[in-house]
């Protein structure tokens, strides 16, 4: 069986496993029905906290609002919208992150001066930054992408510095003996050597960009994405908990899809090296 199919299969099996455990918990400590009296009464296992799997599944095909389209369609539209923001944030963040890493590797002064700020930037909660960005760029696709980029550039910078410094010093001496320009050293040695490090960071960045996009939608007042959907279903949780769970599942799927996309690019671009390094 090819690797991809095997991965998909184990993922599916695990998802089924989670669903089974979920329902077993409800069976043991959930709410009583006509046919079954659970031996325990667990607060976490109530229908409000843990809706039945079939209720969550059912929520996808029921209208999200009266006379509106089904929730599944709404969430797919929202997912596409959020994915686009996340992708924009990912691209901006990856380019910024890599650019910073390249600058830092070439300038010890700038590295010493700026890296503390880069680190500090990540301790400022995104919730605090988001309104500033929204006011600056106006609420819209771009401002959400920038907020998302704020989360994604960091792992790329840190891994990039490490990766760009990873070549064997003798490899750099060889390049020196070829009288290679800095650009040649960067393009032919440092960047290829950094690629496995960068892909590891890009996989982190891919999922972070989805989180960034979802959170970025909240202060922007954007209702078309998953952030808007989650906020909305949060407010109506008491009356329809399954809808929020459905939105959470879709958000998770977007993250996984993005991750798989990056992994695919990694396999294609690093294929010569994968025999040795199963990155």
């Amino acid at each position, binding site marked *: 069986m090819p690797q991809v199919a095997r991965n998909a299969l184990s993922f599916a099996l695990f998802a089924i496993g989670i669903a089974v455990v979920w329902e077993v918990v409800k069976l043991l400590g959930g709410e009583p029905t006509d046919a079954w009296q659970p031996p325990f009464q667990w607060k976490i296992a109530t229908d409000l906290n843990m809706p039945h799997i079939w209720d969550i599944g059912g929520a996808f095909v029921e209208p999200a609002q009266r006379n509106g389209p089904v929730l599944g369609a709404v969430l797919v539209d929202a997912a596409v919208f959020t994915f686009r923001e996340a992708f924009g944030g990912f691209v901006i963040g990856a380019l910024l992150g890599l650019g910073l890493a390249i600058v830092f590797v070439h300038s010890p002064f700038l590295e010493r001066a700026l890296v503390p700020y880069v680190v500090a930037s990540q301790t400022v909660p995104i919730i605090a930054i988001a309104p500033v960005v929204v006011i600056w760029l106006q609420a819209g696709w771009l401002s959400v992408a920038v907020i998302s980029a704020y989360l994604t550039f960091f792992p790329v910078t840190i891994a990039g510095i490490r990766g760009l410094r990873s070549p*064997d010093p*003798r*490899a750099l*001496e*060889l*390049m*020196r*003996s*070829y*009288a*290679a320009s800095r650009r*040649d050293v960067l393009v*032919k*040695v440092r960047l*290829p050597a950094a*690629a496995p490090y960068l892909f590891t960071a890009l996989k982190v960045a891919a999922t972070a960009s989805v989180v960034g996009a979802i959170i970025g939608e909240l202060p922007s007042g954007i209702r078309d994405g998953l952030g808007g959907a989650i906020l909305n279903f949060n407010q109506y949780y008491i009356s329809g908990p399954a809808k929020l769970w459905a939105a959470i599942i879709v958000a998770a799927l977007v993250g996984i899809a993005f991750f798989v996309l990056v992994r695919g690019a990694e396999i294609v671009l*690093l294929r*010569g*090296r994968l*025999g*040795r*390094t199963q990155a």
Partner: protein
Amino acid sequence: MSDAVVTIRGATKVFDVGADQTRALDGIDLDVGKGAFVSLIGPSGCGKSTLLRLIGDLTQPTAGQVQVNGKSAYQARIDRDYGIVFQSPVLFDWRTVEENVELPLEVGGVDKRKRAQRAQAMLALVELTGFEKRYPWQLSGGMQQRVAIARALSFEPAILLMDEPFGALDEMTRERLNLELLGIWRQTGTTIVFVTHSIPEAVFLSTKVVVMSARPGRIVDVIDVDLPQPRSDLTREDPRYFSFITRVRESLRGRVEGSSLRAAGS
């Protein structure tokens, strides 16, 4: 072998290690003639690798002069006069064998067709025809080192600098590669400076063996090895081969005994 490719006068190299200063090289004078095969041999810490790096402008002397082809070592490096082979092959994982050999040509701006031709010729020289599309990690250690040699020779450098290139290989591979290297040396006429700590290897390969001592690094003896060319497996049975080995060993011992045990053991 009259006109010198490398001329070193009074080269001294001092390393600052914290508050201490280490005289890695002290007042080195050395001439390497065109087409010569010169080995640098000595105990660890005698500065033989540092001397090689000085010639290749990978480090600069604290005092003294290094001239290569009548130019400064710096200018020679900019003119791409050096091919360098280290103890480990330092091949690039993401490049095929062929692409590794082409790398210096790529950097030198040689066009694609010419690059491919040169790579072909060099891989034929090191007997790796047919392995062009392999990746380095698919090759044995000896083959990887041959790729490194092909790469170092790809742009026809005036001088080949080799820093214990066969030090990490097993004895049999090492002897075979010694023979191959001599074949390459004869075919290309390249001047070779070769660092080793194997006495038989130095004698077998070289036209001249430079014996060095440690702390401070000095040249204690220069031995012209006039064993007949071309050398072959038979050379290793020549009584004169053994007398040269004895000669080098005595040269080394004479200087090593006064030094610390650690130096003698290495």
